[in-house]
């Protein structure tokens, strides 16, 4: 199964919805599936997007920003979820820090470059093992409602929450 291929990018709508919901700290490591999102954030001086060098470092920054009063979002390719497992297990979840993760879905359905196939298959199980609530972003539902679910869930549970971006939705 493949989600959201084709159709216009919802990256601008996502950024507007994030800002309207109060998200005000943005950091991450890019993915081609997130290129629209990264380029909008990177040229927006209000967003002050931090181009991190590793995904776990971006999560560390998000934790610091949250402690300082910001509402953080971290974007990454799903390969970066592998890099981030310990940061999620022994920092974000352990200290009860709400963080929104926007994670691209390379390797979805097994149709991708070889390096993405296994992570594409095990990404959602990894999130389940980390007890991180997640939803696949849908182009057929208002983006604001999906952001609202993520924000409410992460604040209520004091835990990270992931929105998964399949190909097309945020390119």
């Amino acid at each position: 199964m493949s989600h959201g291929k084709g159709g216009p990018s919802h990256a601008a709508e996502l950024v507007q919805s994030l800002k309207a919901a109060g998200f005000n700290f943005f950091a991450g490591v890019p993915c081609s599936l997130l290129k629209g999102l990264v380029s909008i954030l990177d040229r927006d001086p209000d967003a002050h997007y931090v181009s991190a060098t590793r995904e776990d470092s971006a999560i560390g920054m998000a934790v610091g920003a949250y402690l300082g009063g910001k509402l953080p979002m971290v974007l990454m390719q799903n390969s970066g979820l592998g890099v981030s497992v310990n940061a999620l297990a022994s920092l974000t979840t352990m200290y009860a820090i709400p963080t929104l993760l926007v994670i691209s879905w390379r390797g979805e359905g097994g149709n991708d470059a070889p390096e993405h196939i296994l992570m594409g298959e095990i990404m959602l199980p990894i999130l389940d093992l980390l007890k991180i609530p997640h939803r696949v972003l849908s182009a057929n539902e208002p983006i604001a409602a999906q952001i609202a679910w993520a924000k409410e869930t992460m604040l209520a549970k004091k835990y990270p929450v992931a929105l998964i971006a399949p190909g097309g939705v945020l390119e």
Partner: protein
Amino acid sequence: MNKMEAIGALMERVSDDTLVVCCNGMIGRELFTAKNRPSNFYMIGSMGLGLSIGLGLALAQPSKKVVVLDGDGNVLMGMNALASVGSERPANLWHVVLDNQTHASTGGQRTISGQVKLEDVARSVGYRSASRAEDKASFASALDRAFAEAGPSMVLGTVEGGTLKGIARVEPSPPELAALFAAEARR
């Protein structure tokens, strides 16, 4: 200089409203024993991420002073974060590194900071200043100089290895620590 002397020299110079983010390992337990305060964040897992946390905090709270108290093992593990600090260049961030060339909390195995000068890395990636101090007096004056100027700067103090016997672990639970610290950081 031993680590407790170095931590003492640092905390004498840290104002009440300065936020201190402390790396995991023995340094956190030593800071907890030497001078616990709600404005200390003790990172007890996620080795290597103390500087990233300090950077996010410094960007979120530009009017507050942020000190990251780090060890050589942590700096080496999260060396990429030095580049982020050099790129973002927050003026309110000071990076204090206690270098004993060992992973103290896992049994004193060697690190490679004897071969790699961490203050040179900091300078190369764009910190405003970086210095190395080999004894107590020069560490104290290096801290005074660094705190008198804008960051980001690194003060690295070389310290003796070894650990204090029976030193306490950080007591509050991680969510309690985060809540206490956040209340100070947002004040």
